């Protein structure tokens, strides 16, 4: 028996061989020592069986899972830009009426368009419409106040006493 085969590899040296980072001394020991070589070969054999089994399992599972669909990516508007747009819109909604009220938009400079005058016909039509609305909300019924001549006569309790 040679010294190489009597002093077996430590766990660390054996691990290094399994990782593929064994020293030349370890490699030559493995070549000469059937016990240590047996350990390496047994681990590799178990690992090989495990790898083949897990790959078969994985292939079967992947087959069951079906096809992977590639959908075209939808471009979403960036949230920051959307936020800025909303903020600008809100600012305009507040600033424009306030500015108009304060006469900041130059109505005196003749740059704005004067509101168009309504025509006579339009005014007459509007008046007719208003009358119709009045008639609808004030039916021709005599008001109890008018009927009992309660208009203009103050209630006895509310009558002002002469000072």
């Amino acid at each position: 028996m040679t010294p190489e085969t009597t002093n077996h590899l430590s766990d660390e040296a054996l691990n290094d061989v399994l990782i593929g980072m064994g020293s030349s001394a370890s490699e030559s020991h493995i070549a000469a020592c059937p016990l240590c070589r047996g350990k390496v070969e047994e681990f590799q054999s178990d690992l090989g069986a495990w790898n083949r089994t897990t790959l078969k399992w994985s292939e079967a599972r992947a087959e069951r899972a079906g096809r992977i669909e590639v959908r075209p990516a939808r471009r979403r508007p960036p949230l920051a830009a959307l936020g800025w747009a909303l903020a600008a819109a809100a600012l305009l909604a507040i600033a424009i009426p306030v500015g108009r009220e304060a006469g900041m938009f130059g109505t005196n400079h003749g740059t704005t368009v004067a509101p168009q005058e309504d025509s006579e016909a339009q005014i007459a039509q509007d008046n007719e419409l208003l009358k119709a609305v009045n008639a609808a909300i004030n039916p021709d019924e005599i008001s109890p106040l008018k009927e009992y001549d309660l208009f203009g006569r103050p209630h006895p309790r509310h009558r002002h006493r002469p000072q």
Partner: protein
Amino acid sequence: MGAYASSEFIDMVPRSRVEWRCARRARAIGELDDIDGLVKNYRARILRFVTYSTGDPDLAETITQDTLLKAWMGRENFRGDCSVKTWLTGIAINVTRDHMRSAKFKFWRQTRSTALDVQDLAAFLPAEGSGPERQMLAREKVRELSQAVEALSPNQRTVFLMKFVEEMPVAEISQVLGMPVNTVRTHLHRALSSVRSRMGASV
């Protein structure tokens, strides 16, 4: 003398190396362009890697799908300095990390009592012409090894899978994980010691 123009600099690098890298990239880009081919060639391998990384086959399917889509959509970013398999493994690790950080994953991880059905797994052991006794022994070994891998810490499990399942060199594992080689080696040592002791220290 001023700085080298880019073309001059490229001329200083051995031409064969540059050409080899460009050719490799071109081949890989061609391979990555075909989503169906990508799925066919790599889906099962990524699924296995992610299943053992997460311990959850259902989540692993989602992560595998995300990985392949991410790779396909970002194929222009592939530099060609590693194999497609290594590149995909790196993407799978990142996608897995993102999922594992989520609160939803943590919740389900706590509620799940068992991850992978090892009995179901053993049924996939190839027959390989051995007798029923040897087949039973092999199934037992597969079951033990599966449980030993599942019992590893996340870091140990990742490097173990990269080394012994994906067959990546230690230097490449170190590069993909952004870990020093010695750290990878330490994780591998601990993982191996744990796996071997769980398997009865016969190996």
